[in-house]
């Protein structure tokens, strides 16, 4: 009896020692989580029900911020339209561009690693530099593209200065900087078993069949991953539109995170900005869950039993 008790006692002491040791090691994250994630999460939830201008204490408003955003704000509709337009096109187009470029890099080519490095490079260049370079390249008068067009006697294209073309131009720049997705796709393409292609060749499949019936299905898990990253990143897209178009022209590129940033740090409407942030959070969660739900229909997990 006393033996089992002391054994149990020793065991629980060891358990406690392990727990303390574990907590000690993860304590940096735990402190960060409490101070820089959990507290701000709760605080912003509270602020979203208040009017708060930083000068005086928050005033509780109930659901007023949310109701105002959806019913009275004159810009919110335009901002939502811009954001959905941008995300809806940039995420799939970015994934398609990255997948095709990775597939091209995965074929028998000369100098693969040099091409891969070049394709990847735009993804790691500072966003400010990307913005400055494209602002200059796409400049209506002196940009390389329009100056060339003028040199050929053609009319210029107002890429960033026309409300109609500003969003497509930003989407194009997004497709240009797909380095991360390309590298991830390339790794997954190299994991597709050779034997599948060999078997298909024996069955007389042509290159297109092999691409469409083997390569694409085998890569669907990674396509899903990149698509989700594209959607999440698209909703939070800030730096390039902020630097390239400042939300203009005529609010054509006033995206969600720009609108939120302005409310917080230009107008000091901390309550409304928090409400906007929570709406964004909910939208992102709904989108992600919907994508995961849909994945049962189109994502193929080779490890899973059918």
């Amino acid at each position: 009896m006393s033996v089992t008790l002391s054994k149990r006692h020793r065991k629980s002491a060891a358990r406690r020692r392990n727990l303390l040791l574990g907590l000690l090691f993860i304590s940096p994250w735990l402190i960060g989580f409490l101070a820089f994630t959990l507290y701000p999460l709760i605080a912003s939830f509270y602020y979203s029900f208040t009017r708060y201008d930083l000068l005086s204490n928050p005033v509780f408003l109930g659901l007023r911020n949310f109701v105002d955003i959806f019913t009275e704000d004159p810009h919110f509709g335009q901002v939502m339209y811009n954001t959905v337009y941008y995300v809806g096109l940039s995420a799939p187009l970015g994934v398609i561009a990255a997948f095709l470029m990775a597939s091209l890099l995965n074929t028998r080519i000369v100098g693969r690693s040099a091409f891969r490095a070049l394709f990847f490079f735009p993804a790691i260049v500072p966003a400010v530099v990307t913005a400055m370079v494209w602002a200059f390249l796409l400049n209506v008068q002196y940009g390389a593209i329009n100056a060339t067009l003028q040199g050929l006697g053609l009319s210029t294209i107002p890429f960033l200065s026309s409300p109609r073309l500003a969003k497509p131009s930003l989407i194009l720049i997004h497709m240009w900087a797909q380095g991360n997705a390309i590298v991830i796709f390339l790794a997954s393409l190299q994991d597709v078993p050779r034997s599948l292609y060999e078997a298909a060749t024996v069955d007389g499949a042509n290159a297109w069949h092999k691409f469409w019936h083997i390569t694409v299905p085998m890569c669907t898990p990674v396509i899903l991953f990149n698509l989700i990253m594209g959607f999440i990143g698209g909703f939070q897209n800030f730096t390039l539109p902020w630097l390239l178009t400042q939300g203009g022209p005529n609010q054509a590129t006033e995206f969600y995170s720009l609108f939120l940033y302005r409310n917080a740090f230009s107008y000091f409407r901390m309550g409304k900005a928090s409400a906007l942030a929570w709406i964004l959070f909910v939208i992102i969660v709904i989108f992600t869950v919907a994508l995961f739900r849909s994945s049962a229909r189109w994502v193929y997990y080779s490890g899973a039993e059918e």
Partner: protein
Amino acid sequence: MGTKAQVSSSSTAVTLEKRERAHVRSVTALIGAVLRHLLLIILALSFFLPFYWMASSALKDDSQVYTIPPVWIPNPAHWNNFPDAWLQYNFNRYMVNTVVRYALPVTLGTTLASALVAYGFSRLHWPGRDVLFFICLMTMMIPFQVTMVPLFIVFKHLDWLNSYLPLVIPSFCGSPYFIFMLRQFFMTIPQEISDAARIDGASEFGILFRIILPLARPALTVVALFQFMWAWNDYLGPLIYINKEALYPLALAINQLRSILAGVGISPLAYPYLMAVSTVATIPILIGFFFTQRTFIEGISLTGMKG
């Protein structure tokens, strides 16, 4: 006689046909290869030319910028645009701010803390570990914008605005992304190594610093490299917390230079100067990437795949 001749001629026809088919196949393969490389080169140009345009424009003077059709090879090349733009607009100071005040401390903090936390989440067994790790992963889902406002308010009350503390201090709590990445790496190290060290009386900190970290050097390099680059490239973080010009990092300073130059109308040398400082801000990334390409690309595919 007749039948024999027939057979032989038909077999000749078969081999001929086969040879022809093989020939056709090799020709289509050749055409395919040529088309693939052509496409690759066009794509490569679309990635290369913007950077070439940036670097070559940095060497121009006004008459070479405002020209139709555009000048691709400036002659004469104005190399002094680089030192002129850089020194005239105090870019040494912004460079020091970026590296010394921001990128280096953040890299140190993130790498150290993430390794410590990843060790606790992978090589120690304790009750509640997996729940907390799951929470840690979930926090990656939270959009930056949700915590942005309260954090700003907290840092304002702490009087940390116009300093790098709001960006540096949280980095010493580790980053979930890198904690995850290092944890995956630590898990691949055999448990026996730790057990042997424990029997020899090593403490857990001793095991982490003397055994695990040296083994995990490639993964740690990826963490440090990525974090340094993110800090170097970061725009939004400094934008929120820093509005004192003397404290600007390169990212803010470059955009400010654009406003300064645009403020005077189309001022002389606006574009060449802007392109010159942009080129200089890109060069460390280019050099770093050149020397660590493999680590870089393995790091990206590692984090993407194991997710």
